[in-house]
């Protein structure tokens, strides 16, 4: 058969469990324990409300530029919910609610976006890398973590997040290829929120799905409804279990939507229509999951109202704590911290010069 077609045993699955009309496919429904459901719901609601609050703080000039997550809560939470605490999580820059789930503190987000280096502190027990801003560049780090997990025979996995735009970068490709060659326990979670700033998904790449990019590496790829927490969780759990069991990496494409601006510096009216946003508002992941929790009997309207109050208070306190810190002048000497294990002499000198300069400036200020 000189001209033949190759039998490629590949397929891209598409998964949806709880659809936008509220229809549930019970056969696919993942068993989330009665403790998990309300925790997930609470974190989702907290993420939504905190996002809204950050937006208003930014608009008031109380914090700087930040990337809202509105609309992507299910997609992020469904994925990290499948992780154990000591699994590694390698975020991009738009995983606020996933980070909250993993133990990040509200006020650190505020301080970070207010430009305080202190806010990036990570607890000694946390297995979460800091935010990574250069698009796709964090993927190889997750691969390195996964390589080490395998080398050290640890029962861990690494999960990394990135956007639809990130799939265009060379680092995406190199990372997936390495993960697959070494058959590493890593889960690649693509938050396809349809936009990379002003570039729509169909101009980012010409392929019908992002999930199918896994085929280039003989890696399982799955496309899930990213606004359906149950579907994301199911896909993530499967991928995490496969990874933990030695079955290698998976690419998960969560089809979701960036309901808000790219960052607060962005003006989406330049490139997308309100009508498009409206369409996606109908598929709001929070409402959908909330309805499910109510149906499951772990939530009711009273509890939701109570929750809203609790969360409002929690956020308010965090804002209070953060703003108190913001009011204190940050320690200028911090410039020289955490650069090296031992500050080299060149930097000791620069620090000394800086100290003298500050002292001189204070002196000047005193004498007018």
């Amino acid at each position, binding site marked *: 058969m000189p001209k033949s077609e190759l039998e490629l045993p590949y397929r891209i699955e598409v998964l949806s469990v709880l659809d936008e009309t509220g229809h549930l496919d019970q056969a696919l429904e993942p068993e989330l324990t009665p403790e998990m459901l309300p925790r997930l719901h609470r974190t989702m609601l907290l993420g939504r409300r905190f996002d809204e609050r950050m937006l208003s703080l930014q608009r008031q000039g109380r914090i700087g530029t930040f990337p809202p997550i509105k609309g992507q809560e299910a997609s992020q939470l469904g994925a990290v919910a499948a992780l154990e605490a000591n699994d590694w999580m390698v975020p991009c820059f738009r995983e606020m609610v996933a980070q909250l789930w993993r133990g990040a503190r509200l006020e650190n987000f505020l301080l970070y976006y207010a*430009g305080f280096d202190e806010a990036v502190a990570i607890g000694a027990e946390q297995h979460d890398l800091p935010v990574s801003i250069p698009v796709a560049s964090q993927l190889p780090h997750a691969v390195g973590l996964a390589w080490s997990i395998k080398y050290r025979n640890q029962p861990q996995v690494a999960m990394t997040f990135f956007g639809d735009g990130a799939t265009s970068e060379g680092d995406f490709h190199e990372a997936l290829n390495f993960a697959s060659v070494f058959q590493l326990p890593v889960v690649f979670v693509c938050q396809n929120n349809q936009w990379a700033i002003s570039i729509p998904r169909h101009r980012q790449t010409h392929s019908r799905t992002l999930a199918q990019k896994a085929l280039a590496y003989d890696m399982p790829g799955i496309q899930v409804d990213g606004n359906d927490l149950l579907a994301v969780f199911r896909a993530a759990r499967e991928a995490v279990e496969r990874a933990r069991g030695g079955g290698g990496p998976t690419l998960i494409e969560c089809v979701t939507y960036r309901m808000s601006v790219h960052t607060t510096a962005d003006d989406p009216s330049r490139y997308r229509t309100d009508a498009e946003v409206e369409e996606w508002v109908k598929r709001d992941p929070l409402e959908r999951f909330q309805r499910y929790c109510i149906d499951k009997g772990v939530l009711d309207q009273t509890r939701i109202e109570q929750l809203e109050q609790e969360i409002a208070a929690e956020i308010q306190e965090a804002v209070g704590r953060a703003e108190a810190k913001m009011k204190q002048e940050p320690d200028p000497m911090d*410039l020289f911290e955490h650069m090296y294990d031992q500050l080299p002499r060149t930097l000791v000198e620069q620090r000394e010069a800086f100290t003298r300069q500050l002292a001189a400036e204070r002196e000047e200020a005193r004498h007018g």
Partner: protein
Amino acid sequence: MAKMTMVQALNLALRQRMEADDSVIVLGEDVGRDGGVFRVTDGLIDQFGENRSVDTPLAESAIVGMGIGMAVFGLRPVCEMQFSGFSYQAFHQIESHAARLRRRSRGRFTVPMVVRAPYGGGVRALEHHSESREAFYAHIPGLKMVIPSGPRNARALLVSAIEDPDPVIFFEPKAVYRAFREEVPEAEERLPLSRSQLVREGRHVTLVAYGAMVRPTLEAADQLQAHSGIEAEVIDLLTISPIDDELFTASVKKTGHAVVVHEAPKSFGPGAEIIARMMEKSFYYLEAPIIRVTGYDTMFPLFAREQWYLPNARRIARAVQETLKH
């Protein structure tokens, strides 16, 4: 003549070059419909269509690499790196190809390409959005590295960069983008990519700066004059590489003292080259050590601390007083 910000002036440069020459193509992330995240390419897509103001996928190496292919073909691509801190993804394309194709083909192929990138601090930005690493590009033979300091010279330099037959890395100081306006004539102006400019005359000390640092340097010069009668001569490099050492060596021969200012980290930064050349060419005229007022050899801090990282008029003035003490 209209009063323009640097963003508007750069936009004008692009527009007029695109009107004059259909081989000029703007490409990069969000440069089309969005007009660039700083709006430097605003409106170009409406006037010239999406084949001239090209929104690309998110991949810097391919943007520059595609620009190289376009330039070899005979077009004049103007690639935008959204921030200079993301130009490293394209570093190998710039170092290994853009800078080399002329020699590698004995002049058969050239790369008349501009790579534009906003650089520098002072705008309360996120990590990677405030760095000044022009030294990386200044150290690559075959490239030109240009940094304007105001709306009018930005426009003229960008026109020259686009017309230049060789690849030009063009860093735009974000802190200046909208900081002030200048008269920018409608008719195209050009500035050579080989000349620095005397922006203030003086006889006691030579200050060398470029980009966003020119303003605090001038401010320091004013303060020094006002408070101590010190007359500082200020030179704006405009082109970092190939460096123009004529003006500053001549100046330092006159003044005997110099202070060099940049945002970039001190060590192995552009200031070192300026000092080395003053040393080589004006040694016998120097009366005191030349001082560098620069960023520190640290990560650029998040913005709550950027005022301490960035040189300012006060630090510059103090350095001048220090060097004049000798």
